[in-house]
Structure formats: structure tokens, C-alpha cells
């Protein structure tokens, strides 16, 4: 399986993402620059964390207009898995691929530490290798991870089981403890915690690896070749 890791000016978790795919998952990963305009050759698209365009206006607001973004949107519409982590999640929100917006953390602090997440929905292409209700340890590192959406959107997210992960101990003030959400089709996931930083016990947790294994498993199941 071939993963594209999109590199924006200011991305700083692209190497972690690449490492997770290449060294821990054992699949192919390729860095794709923000100014390229073709993602046709990739099976999954990864938007890493960082500070794209310095977050000078708002997290993700400027990256959303990068030349690669129409291709990311095209890939999402084609049903390919698209994962946005941290700043990548903010970019997906700004691009309208996921609903809602990010505000400054409730306590206004930048927080960088492992947190406990609950798997709310394990019937997705990103979470099928977890059990429902699993408690997993994944690090956060953000100052603007306070997820907000209006009541109508929240009701819809719940109704359609699009809340993939919640925080056990909400660190940032997100509505309903939301840590990660899916689009209606289930092939776009945005999450603030960093699964790519939890792919080996050496890093303090390997709980993030199952997310990437889930993507791979789903892809293999839908690309079975009958000899």
C-alpha cells in the first residue's frame, strides 16, 4: 500500500508519519510537497501535524489553499482514506472536508503529553483493529485543539457514529470530549492526538499502530485479487 505524506511549509510531524508507515507498518511512504498537483498514484493520504504556513492567520487556514489541496479533496471524494492529525485535522476542517472548527485550548496552554483516548467507533477503516471502548494512550501536542461544532452538527456526528475517539480526561475543552471525527462517508478522519508518535513501546506507547494497521487491513480487504 502506498501512502502520501503531504509536506506543507511548516509541517513538523511529517517525518514521524513517514517513520510510522515505512518502519513500523512496513508499507511504502512518499513525501509529497504542498505545491505538487497529483495524488493519483497513492492509496492513502496523510496530512501531518505541525504549523503549516506558520498558522499565521489560524491553524490550517492558509494551507487549505495550497496547490495540493484540490487533489486531497479529489482523493477524499474518491473514497481513499485521508487522515489528518493535529494541524492536519485543522486543515481538513478549514477545507470543509470535516465539520466544525478549532479554538484555543480552554486553559490557553500548549499541552504536550500522553493522554487516554476511548475508541468510540471501531467499525471504521481507521479503527477496525481496535475493540470498541478500548482505552489507548496517544500523545497530544497542541495549543488549538478545542474542537467546536454547533448543536445540530454534534447531533449529526453522534447519530451517524462519526465520533471515532474521545478523551477520557478532556484536556482542551472540546465539545463532548471529541478527539477525532469522521466525514459522512467514513473515509476522512481528523484527530488532534498523534497516533504516529505512538507506534513503538520505545516511544512510550504502541497504541497508535493499530490505526495504521486498520487502514492497511481495510485496503487489503477491498483489493483482494483472485488468482
Amino acid at each position: 500500500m502506498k501512502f502520501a505524506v503531504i509536506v506543507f511549509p511548516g509541517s513538523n510531524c511529517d517525518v514521524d508519519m513517514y517513520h510510522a508507515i515505512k518502519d513500523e507498518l512496513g508499507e511504502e511512504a512518499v513525501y509529497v510537497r504542498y505545491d505538487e498537483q497529483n495524488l493519483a498514484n497513492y492509496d492513502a493520504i496523510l496530512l501531518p501535524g505541525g504549523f503549516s504556513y506558520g498558522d499565521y492567520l489560524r491553524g490550517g487556514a492558509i494551507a487549505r489553499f495550497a496547490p495540493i489541496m484540490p487533489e486531497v479533496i479529489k482523493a477524499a471524494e474518491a473514497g481513499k482514506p485521508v487522515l489528518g492529525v493535529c494541524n492536519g485535522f485543522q486543515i481538513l476542517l478549514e477545507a470543509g472536508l470535516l465539520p466544525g472548527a478549532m479554538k484555543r485550548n480552554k486553559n490557553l496552554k500548549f499541552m504536550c503529553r500522553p493522554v487516554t483516548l476511548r475508541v468510540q467507533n471501531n467499525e471504521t477503516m481507521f479503527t477496525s483493529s481496535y475493540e470498541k471502548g478500548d482505552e489507548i494512550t496517544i500523545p497530544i501536542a497542541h495549543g488549538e485543539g478545542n474542537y467546536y461544532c454547533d448543536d445540530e452538527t454534534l447531533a449529526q456526528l453522534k447519530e451517524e457514529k462519526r465520533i471515532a475517539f474521545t478523551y477520557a480526561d478532556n484536556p482542551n475543552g472540546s465539545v463532548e470530549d471529541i478527539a477525532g471525527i469522521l466525514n459522512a462517508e467514513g473515509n476522512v478522519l481528523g484527530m488532534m492526538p498523534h497516533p504516529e508518535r505512538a507506534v513503538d513501546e520505545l516511544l512510550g506507547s504502541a497504541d497508535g499502530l493499530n490505526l495504521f494497521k486498520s487502514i492497511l487491513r481495510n485496503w487489503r480487504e477491498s483489493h483482494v485479487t483472485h488468482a
Partner: protein
Amino acid sequence: MYKVKVYVTLKESVLDPQGSAVKNSLHSLSYNEVEDVRIGKYLELTVKDTENLDQRIKEICEKLLANTVIEDYTYEIEEGVAQ
């Protein structure tokens, strides 16, 4: 040339963590008459003479300057700004 002053604020319905922190600071300085603080952004655009200026500014605000999911914006256009 025009000078366009754009004000971006969090919607009334959206809690403002920065505003709350500043309000608390004011209260700790005994400025208890301050009932609420909202923090926003102020942007100043210098814009060439353009057709449909008003429409263009709206577009600019909605596309990039404000995130209309959580933010409101207002703007003022001042004419005849010297270069």
C-alpha cells in the same frame, strides 16, 4: 486607494477562552465593572480601486480572514487613502 478595516470576532454563541482569561485578570485588578471580554482580530487592508469592492471584501473575509463556523466579521471601507 481604499483602506479597509476588518474586525474578526468569535460568534456570541462561542465561548472565548482568551477573553475569559483577560476578564479574570481585570477582576483580579478590581475592575469589577467589566462584565465580559471578547478578543478578536483587527486587520487593515490597503486596496486598489476595484470594481465590486464591497463584494470582493466580503469574499475575502469569508474565504480566508474569518472562519465563519465560529467567527463573525465586520468591515469599514475608507475612501481616498493617500499612498
